[in-house]
């Protein structure tokens, strides 16, 4: 197998693209798994798969959702491959708390712990929106949901977060089928 100059340039370009996206991909995997070692494994495996399948990426602008899809599938595979023990969320939070702090202010740590406590169905769209900058329609595409369903989940995610953080929610609208 001979690798031409064009191929090398293509690989270098793809590598640079992945480099720029990797920090947020790792953060996304961390929010998804709530486990640093699982997140690192998932991102490493996902990038390896992406590198092998890079010809499938026809438009660089689509790289972020494409890589996220690979990461979500890879994360699902970790549960197919091995039985992942059920961990109590309080134990999980206790073990991850120093890592969540990162020398930052207590308010941020409190908010991060609250995000950890959100069910995955709310945590995932919220992180896609706030961290990855996805629009509601893009989140719907990624998760296979209608725009209305995404909006409901995002509304519930923020409302639950605000309750968990002890914010004044007296002026928040009730969750009565909005």
């Amino acid at each position, binding site marked *: 197998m001979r690798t031409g100059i064009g191929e090398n340039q293509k690989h270098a370009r793809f590598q640079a693209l992945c480099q720029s996206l990797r920090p947020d991909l790792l*953060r996304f995997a961390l929010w998804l798994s709530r486990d640093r070692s699982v997140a690192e494994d998932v991102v490493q495996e996902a990038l390896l798969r992406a590198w092998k399948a890079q010809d499938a990426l026809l438009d660089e602008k689509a790289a972020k959702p494409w890589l996220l899809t690979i990461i979500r599938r890879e994360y699902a595979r970790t549960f197919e491959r091995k039985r992942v023990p059920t961990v109590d969320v309080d134990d999980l939070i206790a073990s991850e708390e120093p890592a969540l702090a*990162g020398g930052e202010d207590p308010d*941020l740590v409190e*908010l991060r712990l609250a*995000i950890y406590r959100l069910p995955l169905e709310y945590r995932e769209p919220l*992180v896609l*929106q*706030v961290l990855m900058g996805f629009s509601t329609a893009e989140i719907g595409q990624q998760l296979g949901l209608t725009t209305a369903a995404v*909006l409901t989940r995002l509304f519930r995610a923020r409302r639950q977060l605000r309750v968990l953080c002890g914010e004044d929610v007296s002026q928040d609208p009730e969750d009565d089928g909005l």
Partner: protein
Amino acid sequence: MMDCKHYRAALLADPAAVTAEMRDHGSGCAACAQFTQRIQAFEARLQRAVRLPLPEARDAGRGASVSPLPIAASASGRRVASRTLRWTALAASFIAAISVGGLLWLAVPRSSLAGDVVNHMAEEPEAWRRTTAVVSPAALDAVMQDAHMHLSAATAGLVSYASSCGFRGHQVPHLVVQDPSGPVTVMVLVHESARSPDDFDEQGYRGEILPVPGHGAIAILTRNQRLDAAALDRIALQLRAAIRWTN
């Protein structure tokens, strides 16, 4: 006409997507305007919170140690193995490069918007004087009106410098607020977009770009290395609360 319940639900679902209908409601309803400020402050914290600190040291080590794929022993297997090894080597170097590159990416200033803001500062050194002189309300109004805004001097703090500056093809307000810890510069960048806060530390300036849902972003920066991110956030939120967009 949108009611308060639907306005607030829409804001909670996506605080960055403020529609014209929502803007109409928000500008005519004092309770919802107050609610919006609280949600925006919460959102600024949320955007900072999701940017988890990354495990840099562990990650760098892991990146260089991709497990090799199984190698077959037969003659035909050797060809496959040779290809596999080459493939694995390429993949390993890719992963290693990504990991090391990721660390470098984290270490270098990467926002050209932040870079442009810092470069702009160098053009106006007089803005950094520590002073107790306040810009007159008329001069402040003139600067803000250029950008279709009004600034409430009562809540903005001590504004010692106000200039309408050309920045990326638009006139934007460049303000200096005299904080007890020293002067802090703020640029209101209505024409820029930012989905999440971006910290920067370039050429002796430290600061952040903060998104303002529906109204672009605010850049805030200081030369005082002792002023922490929380203090910058406080000043930015104070300014943001004092601004009323009039367009």
